[in-house]
């Protein structure tokens, strides 16, 4: 039984506009969590990474947080 946020909430697609969701997969410095920490499957982790990077490019998420 996987116990990650995406499975728990039955989220199939990760959207870069869902900043509040994506913020749960970055640490206070703005870095993307590893799979060990996020608890995501490989497929989910790739989707989250892509979404976070899109959100960063569009200025919705920070690249680094001081």
């Amino acid at each position, binding site marked *: 039984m996987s116990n990650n946020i995406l499975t728990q909430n039955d989220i199939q697609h990760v*959207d870069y506009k869902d900043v509040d969701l994506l913020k749960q997969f970055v640490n206070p410095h703005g870095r993307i969590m590893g799979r060990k920490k996020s608890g995501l499957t490989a497929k989910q982790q790739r989707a989250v990474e892509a979404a976070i990077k899109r959100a960063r490019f*569009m200025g919705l998420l920070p690249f680094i947080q001081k």
Partner: protein
Amino acid sequence: MADDAVMEINETDTDAAVLRIYEVGYHITPSAKEEDLEKIVASIRSVIESAGGGPSSGGKASFIAEGAPSLTKLAYPIMVRVGDKSIEYDRGYFGWIKFESAIAVARSLEASLKQNQNIFRSIVFRTVREDTRAKMKAPQLREVKRTDTIHKAPRRVEESSAPISEEQLEKAIQDITAE
């Protein structure tokens, strides 16, 4: 049957025939007026329509979903060079459109957005037809028991609101000074 399958593959191989789902996200400069936002969005839509609607391209662009531009604070200041000057934006009107079109349309849209003076950042990428927004609610912040709030507890009732007589007062003073 087998021939049909091959035909299909051949057809999808040509760029123009393939319709794909794309999403475009854009930031309109905050200096743009609220009334002009619609015009700017309409110009983006027209690029998609005009590029994809041609009969020669074989495909028709169609819109699936759209998010109206709303003023958003950026996570970091975005610098844009315009000629010699560089402008720093700390906010922008962020909007998005999901559409279905041929590959060439997405390419030309990307190029036209880069040329657009009103848009300082944009992204075009492939996505799926389904709604990708998460339907989960933002996680509720853990309820913290506050200790710094002042409860409206009944104050100590003022003792003996009745006026104190001179004698009582004098006696009390003497008691204090005697010690």
